[in-house]
């Protein structure tokens, strides 16, 4: 393949991944890595390096829009980033230790979970809770817009949420993804933070988490400019387009289709990992 063909094909695949990732809220990384490795035979290390930078781009690019809506909570985000950045450094260091086959299998398992979460669309747990003692001391509770008015919400189970965020950071550093799905699980399911606050705050945190492992990736050479360039520009373009059409799209059907696609990718990653073909 010539450099020109490779750049165009990777750009187009990444744009599609970014588009679907934005529509479903799962992010572009979960599709970009399997697309590069399975379809184009790119080594996992190049794929996760390119995916990691695209994750920083989409997270940062979308943040300005989310902030205007007034859902994201920078205190919760900043506090939990202590856990995600530490996890990300550990994950990135581990990525160099474990072999490519094992990495592919772990990636496949993560995709299985993402497929499940995509098909079984999550919604708000409600009703809102009071903050517990630790959350009060950390002033994590805040208000968010509901039907044009700002309603209060509390936060609970901070240590468990913090622990899960360390895991989310670890996955992000290990696999070069945003692991937004796990971050949302930790905030929404465990800490009982409203769903919309959880998803927007998670987006906010993804860039910082990924930046923590980017240094390790860069120094190891995982971020190759010739692979990362079309991936970053493609995912960014796709994600911007995706967030524009998000309002009109029939998200439920789309999530189902996306879930099935991810399920197929998950199985293929795991099988290829076990057979030693990746």
């Amino acid at each position, binding site marked *: 393949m010539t450099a*020109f063909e490779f750049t165009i094909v990777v750009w187009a695949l990444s744009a599609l991944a970014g588009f679907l990732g934005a529509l479903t809220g799962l992010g572009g990384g979960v599709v970009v890595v399997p697309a590069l490795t399975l379809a184009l035979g790119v080594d996992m290390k190049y794929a996760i390096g390119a995916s990691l930078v695209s994750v*920083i781009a989409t997270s940062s690019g979308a943040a300005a829009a989310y*902030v205007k809506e007034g859902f994201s909570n920078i205190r919760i985000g900043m506090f939990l980033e*202590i856990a995600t950045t530490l996890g990300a450094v550990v994950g990135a260091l581990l990525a160099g230790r474990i072999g490519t086959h094992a990495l592919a299998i772990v990636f496949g398992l993560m995709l299985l979970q993402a497929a499940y979460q995509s098909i079984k669309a999550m919604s708000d747990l409600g009703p809102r809770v009071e903050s517990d003692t630790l959350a009060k001391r950390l002033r994590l509770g805040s208000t968010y817009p509901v039907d044009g008015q700002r309603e209060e919400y509390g936060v609970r189970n901070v240590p468990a949420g913090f622990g899960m965020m360390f895991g989310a950071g670890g996955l992000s550093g290990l696999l070069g993804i945003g692991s937004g799905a796990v971050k949302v699980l930790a905030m929404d399911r465990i800490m009982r933070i409203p769903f919309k606050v959880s998803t927007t705050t998670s987006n906010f945190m993804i860039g910082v988490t990924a930046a923590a492992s980017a240094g390790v990736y860069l120094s*190891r050479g995982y971020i190759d400019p010739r692979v990362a360039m079309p991936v970053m520009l493609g995912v960014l373009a796709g994600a911007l387009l995706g967030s524009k059409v998000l309002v009109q799209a029939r998200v439920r059907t789309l999530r189902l289709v996306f879930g099935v696609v991810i399920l197929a990718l998950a199985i293929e990653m795991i099988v290829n990992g076990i057979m030693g073909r990746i």
Partner: protein
Amino acid sequence: MDDRRLESIIGELLRAGVLLSAAVVTAGGVLYLVRHHADQVNYRTFVAGGPGIQTLPGIVQSAAHLNSAGLIQLGLLLLIATPVARVAVAAVGFALERDRLYAVVSLIVLLILAASLIHAT
């Protein structure tokens, strides 16, 4: 300074960082395609690319010589620096709000990021 204002400053900062980075990466990408479009490429086996794309001084130097890979990598460095700048701005913002707890929390995150980046390069 209040939270809403701090959030919108941070949001704009992030967007500006991404746009700047995307512009530099695009410039490097165009240069790369002009010079190397017919090269045969193959990324099946991982080979580390060398100091010109792996270390901070190496990247700055090759970007200054208008090396296309170095230019793309410089754009990606700007991208990586964007969320780091966000944390630094938040630390200052919280300090201005006299929110000592969250100024310290932001500094801890900044320290982890700095340690990881410095250790790596």
